[in-house]
């Protein structure tokens, strides 16, 4: 088998070891049996009627036990009478199931599990994630002094069962860097570190967490993660990938996180803000969530095809983001493993199929947005503009007089208004007609033309142009707008997912195997949004809790955060997941409180140090006998380098920016040049989330660190470790510039001795002092580098200033060049690109 995912297989194996294999214990259907049925049987004997063979269905107990043909697939308590057991154990090529041609045999261990399951009565259970989470009691723990909060009870209980023990708490410097990166995406400043280290109060850590949660950087960091789910980009996608103006939505997300908008509200506004009573401007902006789908404006394409593709994407994204349920299969056929039919799919499609957007190049419908200044003056400006328009259209006696003079002059071949454009031919023609012979229409045209060019009204015209500029929207954002009346579309099943091949008509609704919409609720987006966050929904709270967990611990309690269905992996700590899900709902979907809960646990605060035994036992840190440690995201690595060097701009919000990127010299197909002008001033140094996100030409260094292109919803980014990443942080001018600025900062703030400067560099970058050995190595490096540059002033100058710019007054180039080499090493440390 080819690797399913870089971490997936490993975790599956580990989770199994604690299953029923070892002992004769009771079989758990969801843990032991469902994966076998799902992977080996249900493709032909599952929910999909079209694929079903021998009219046998194994995912429903009644069907599996049905003996109306004289025998039954399963006879509870009697494996030897069960056709299923005979078939999977058979050595006869003609009888054995799955058939040898499928090349997916049931293993001996699996056959044994099936046999024991039938022996024990072949009890089925609803797939764990489709049953509503029940709040479990906290397990009693062996060491009551260790837990800081309920999370730790579950973790410690499991560690105990596995014969493992937790690690000691990480030191404070490590902790503050870890938690600052997790909550804000930025490392702490040396001043924040000093404040925390000097705080003797028992709740020092909690108060630190509160400070971090209250900073604006929190919302920016959380937004970055949400924008992967929302497939936010500043371009429309497909071949020519034109720019799209939708950054107001990105800013809405940042502000919503910073305001700690409850997640259920956050859901309603994005899914259906326009359908809320008397929606505010901000609620309309929120609906751009589903306008992040791609639009195709290549010549010769069918808009309906791509409008339909966008609705498909909205169905898939909605179910993935909120319910961890992949619907993609059911677009073309009834799901083979989970109880979702193709009709179910198009029920959801029908709910989302009635908005006004239609794959148009102009992205209509758009919401114009105005600044506060504009809004404050809007009425006054509009009034002034109206009165100016009237003035400009009114021929006073004085103007009539002036018009006569102008007419005479023009007819005499003069140019009375040399600054105005040449008198156009149609006007000249009217002029040549005798004044008394002109029709009313001609007279009006002539007067209008005159009023439009006469210098007597120049001041009014200029002012009107100015007002038009002031009244123009500051920006626009594509939004959802529900169609009404005859414009509403009917939805039909698209056979094999083809938008031209239509089957039966489908009424809007939710998948039948889930909880229904409330009685009397209109089957629209607003009801769907409420359904997603309803108390009866078994999935949403688990999915959200799991995603927050994954963000902080590196891996979800359900390792496949995008798939909670039977094809996903089961939770490693099912009770903990359910406790967290119920806690999230109990606190009113308060995300800041939820993150605080996670990071103040003893589990989170453990040291991430690992010894070879533990590493061999639990390489992926499933059981959490140590603290989390993993590579930072693309944006975090960039933001951190700019932050520690003092370059990062604190500016929030606004249009996307273009930090330096290498020129390609290429054009897009049938389009314009791909390269962009580099932003200047502060915009060169903004946080990564403000970088213009172009789907077909993503910012290269971010791609290298596993940022997706955001064509579709991304739940989980991979974390690879490649040589191309080394080239970015060593040589990309963005990182060289950061090294130069960091070097100047180390020299400026560190003090006179090399020791002090190295210490300052460590404090800025890693929130700690260097060890003796680290200091020695860097001292040797700076000495060697200084030596190398002392004979080569040109190289020294380049190293210290290209691209950052001129040296501070009085600075020696070889000195700063040498420190730039040191700073370049610091920015590339393993510890630097990791949270640990």
């Amino acid at each position, binding site marked *: 088998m*080819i*690797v399913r995912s870089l971490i997936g297989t490993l975790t599956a194996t580990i989770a199994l070891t604690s299953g029923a294999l070892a002992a004769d214990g009771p079989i758990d259907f969801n843990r032991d049996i469902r994966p076998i049925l799902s992977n080996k049987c249900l493709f032909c004997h599952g929910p999909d009627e079209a694929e079903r063979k021998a009219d046998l269905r194994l995912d429903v107990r009644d069907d599996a036990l049905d003996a109306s043909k004289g025998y039954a697939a399963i006879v509870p308590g009697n494996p030897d009478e069960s056709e299923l057991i005979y078939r999977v154990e058979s050595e006869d090529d003609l009888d054995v199931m799955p058939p040898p041609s499928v090349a997916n045999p049931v293993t001996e261990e699996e056959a044994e599990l099936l046999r024991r399951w039938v022996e024990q009565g072949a009890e089925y259970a609803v797939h764990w994630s489709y049953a509503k989470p029940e709040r479990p009691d906290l397990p009693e723990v062996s060491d009551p002094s260790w837990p800081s909060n309920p999370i730790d009870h579950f973790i410690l209980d499991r560690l105990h069962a596995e014969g493992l023990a937790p690690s000691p708490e990480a030191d404070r410097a490590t902790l503050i860097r870890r938690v600052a990166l997790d909550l804000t995406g930025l490392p702490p400043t040396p001043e924040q570190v000093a404040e925390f280290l000097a705080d003797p109060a028992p709740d020092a850590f909690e108060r630190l967490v509160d400070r971090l949660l209250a900073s604006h950087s929190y919302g920016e960091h959380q937004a970055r993660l949400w924008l992967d789910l929302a497939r936010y980009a500043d371009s429309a*996608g*497909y*071949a020519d990938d034109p720019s799209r103006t939708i950054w107001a939505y990105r800013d809405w997300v940042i502000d919503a996180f910073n305001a700690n908008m409850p997640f259920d509200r956050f859901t309603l506004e994005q899914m259906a803000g326009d359908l809320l009573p008397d929606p505010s401007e901000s609620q309309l902006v929120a609906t751009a969530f589903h306008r992040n789908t791609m639009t195709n404006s290549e*010549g*010769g394409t069918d808009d309906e095809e791509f409008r339909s*593709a966008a609705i498909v994407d909205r169905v898939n994204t909605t179910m993935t983001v909120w319910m961890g*349920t*992949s619907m*993609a*299969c059911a677009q073309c056929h009834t799901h083979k493993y*989970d109880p979702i039919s193709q009709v179910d799919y198009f029920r959801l499609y029908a709910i989302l199929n009635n908005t006004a957007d239609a794959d148009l190049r102009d992205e209509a419908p758009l919401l114009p947005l105005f600044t506060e200044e504009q809004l404050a003056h809007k009425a006054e400006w509009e009034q002034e503009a109206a009165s100016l328009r009237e003035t400009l259209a009114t021929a006073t006696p004085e103007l009539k007089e002036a018009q006569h003079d102008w007419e005479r002059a023009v007819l005499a071949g003069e140019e009375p208004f040399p600054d105005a454009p040449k008198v156009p031919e149609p006007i000249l023609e009217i002029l040549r007609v005798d004044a008394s012979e002109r029709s009313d229409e001609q007279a009006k045209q002539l007067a209008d033309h005159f009023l439009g060019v006469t210098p007597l009204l120049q001041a009014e015209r200029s002012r009107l142009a100015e007002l038009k500029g002031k009244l123009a929207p500051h920006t626009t954002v594509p939004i959802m707008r529900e169609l009404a009346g005859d414009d509403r579309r009917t939805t039909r099943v698209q056979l094999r997912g083809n938008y031209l091949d239509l089957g039966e008509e489908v009424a809007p609704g939710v998948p039948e195997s889930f909880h229904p919409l409330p009685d009397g609720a209109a089957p629209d987006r607003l009801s769907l949004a409420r359904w997603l966050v309803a108390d009866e929904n078994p999935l949403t709270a688990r999915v959200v809790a799991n995603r927050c967990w994954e963000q902080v611990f590196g891996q979800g309690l359900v390792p496949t955060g*995008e*798939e909670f269905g039977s*094809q*996903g992996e089961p939770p490693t700590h099912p009770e903990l997941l359910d406790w967290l899900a119920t806690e999230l709902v109990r606190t009113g979907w308060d995300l800041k409180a939820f993150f605080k809960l996670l990071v103040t646990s003893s589990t989170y605060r453990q040291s*991430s140090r690992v*010894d*070879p035994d533990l590493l061999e036992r639990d390489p992926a840190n499933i059981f959490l006998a140590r603290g989390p440690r993993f590579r930072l995201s693309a944006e975090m690595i960039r933001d951190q380098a700019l932050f520690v060097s003092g370059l990062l701009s604190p500016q929030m919000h606004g249009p996307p920016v273009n930090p330096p990127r290498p*020129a390609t*010299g290429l*054009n897009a*197909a*049938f389009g314009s040049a*791909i390269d962009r002008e580099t932003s200047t001033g502060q915009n060169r140094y903004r946080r990564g989330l403000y970088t213009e996100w172009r789907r*077909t*030409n*993503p910012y290269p260094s971010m791609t*290298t660190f596993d940022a997706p*292109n955001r*064509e*579709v919803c991304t739940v989980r980014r*991979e974390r*690879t*470790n*490649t*040589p191309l*990443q*080394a*080239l*970015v942080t060593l*040589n990309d*001018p963005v990182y060289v510039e950061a090294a130069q600025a960091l070097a100047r900062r180390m020299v400026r703030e560190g003090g006179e001795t090399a020791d002090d400067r190295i210490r300052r560099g460590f404090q800025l970058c890693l929130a700690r002092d260097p060890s003796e050995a*680290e200091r020695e190595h*860097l001292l040797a*490096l700076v000495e060697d*580098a200084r*030596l*190398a540059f002392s004979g080569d002033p*040109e*190289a*020294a*100058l*380049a190293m210290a200033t*290209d691209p950052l710019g001129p040296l501070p007054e009085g600075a020696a180039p070889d000195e700063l060049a040498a420190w730039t*080499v040191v700073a370049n*090493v610091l920015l590339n440390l*393993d510890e630097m*690109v990791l949270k640990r």
Partner: protein
Amino acid sequence: MDPRTERLQHVTRRHFLREMPAGLGAVALASLLNDGAQARDRSSGDPMALRPPHFAPKAKNVIYLHMSGAPPHLDLFDYKPALVKHSGQDCPDRFLEGRRFAFTSGTPKLLGTPRTFAPRGESGIWMSDAIPRLHDVADEICLVKSMYTEQFNHAPAELLLFTGSPRQGRPSFGSWVTYGLGSESQDLPGFVVLISSGVQPSAGQGAWGSGFLPSVYQGVQCRSKGDPVLYVSDPPGMDRSLRRRSLDTLNELNALQAEELGHPETSTRIAQYELAYRMQMSVPEVMDISRESPTTIDAYGAQPGAASFANNCLLARRLVEQGVRYVQLFDWGWDFHGTGPGEDLRDGLTNKCATMDRPVAALIKDLKARGLLDETLVIWSGEFGRTPFREGRTSGGNILGRDHYPDCFAIFMAGGGVRPGYSHGETDELGFSIVEKPVHVHDLQATILHQLGFDHERLTYRFQGRDFRLTDVHGHVVDELLA
């Protein structure tokens, strides 16, 4: 010796290894640095570690030559004397009913080729006079005249060809191949993309993206201007010895971390920095075609320092020689609508082909001469075909052009265990539909994967609860194309 140089050279990698603290980090590191291959194991986190395919492969490497825009197959490979005979007549309704064409409506005029055709080589494969140098390799190539697709716009058709789906978001061919096989090369990317004629293909980076596969499997674009691979040059002012010296310090500090915290990923990172260091040398070296003999450079029609398809063909050979798994070339300018003299089927096509047939023929001969053709599969294609009638917009002018046509087109392959000197499939006498042995784009993909040792139905990746594959839910290996 200059004392500075001496001091720098003193602190070499070996020295660093000798001086390093003993323990887990040091041992792991020593094995990484001394024997890269030993550490190239995916469980240790190297996603490019070699892995075996499903069965013994015929080909190890792929060079895919893509003519962006779709070359006029009826003027290059698929000779239709009857179309010449009826040239200028109204296109019969039966070929137009219920059809949409990108830029043609109403009743267009049939267009017989203005080119001269003849059987070429001992195998007698028919080719036109537009590609004289390819006549010399007629006995090496495996021509498929019965290709078809469903997409008649460039971007979706290229995406279908390279990712198996007409929409963005799926992994590309080269990503699947490097994901499946890993990379032979220790100091070059496994999947390299080379672009000529100044314009990206219509599918954009989606044509070499990794989709939902880890991004490490996406194609690395090598550029003819600036850094051949992004950020491969040291920053201004830093020479190689100082880079080496600073990397040594970096390794030393990272080794201390590995020692203290015991995470194997740190050792992997050290190894990746060493690989990056080697790439800094090997990439500019392999990209420098001036190292080739004048005879070879001339055979390809390449020009050191320029940016051209010919240079890219020569580079492709250099890259596979160095163990690069999959080299993808895109050349812009094959969209022969007839909207300008460059898109005319007479002189325009002659001129465009002159930039293509010489390097392609040279590449095939060169690979053969070096014993690389057996293990290297060369593929030449467009994303669809062109109509047997004149394009609607340009039909009134003097310039002869054709519209997009998905129902029939021609591609060829060479080497990598495909049947040489063979012509596969036939279209009807006017070239409107396939009458013999149709080959869908998914069949081509299945066949190429087969040559690399994969069962295309088993090369899968789980995403959003589904096992995805390059051929989606389609595709059959075309056995007749295999030697």
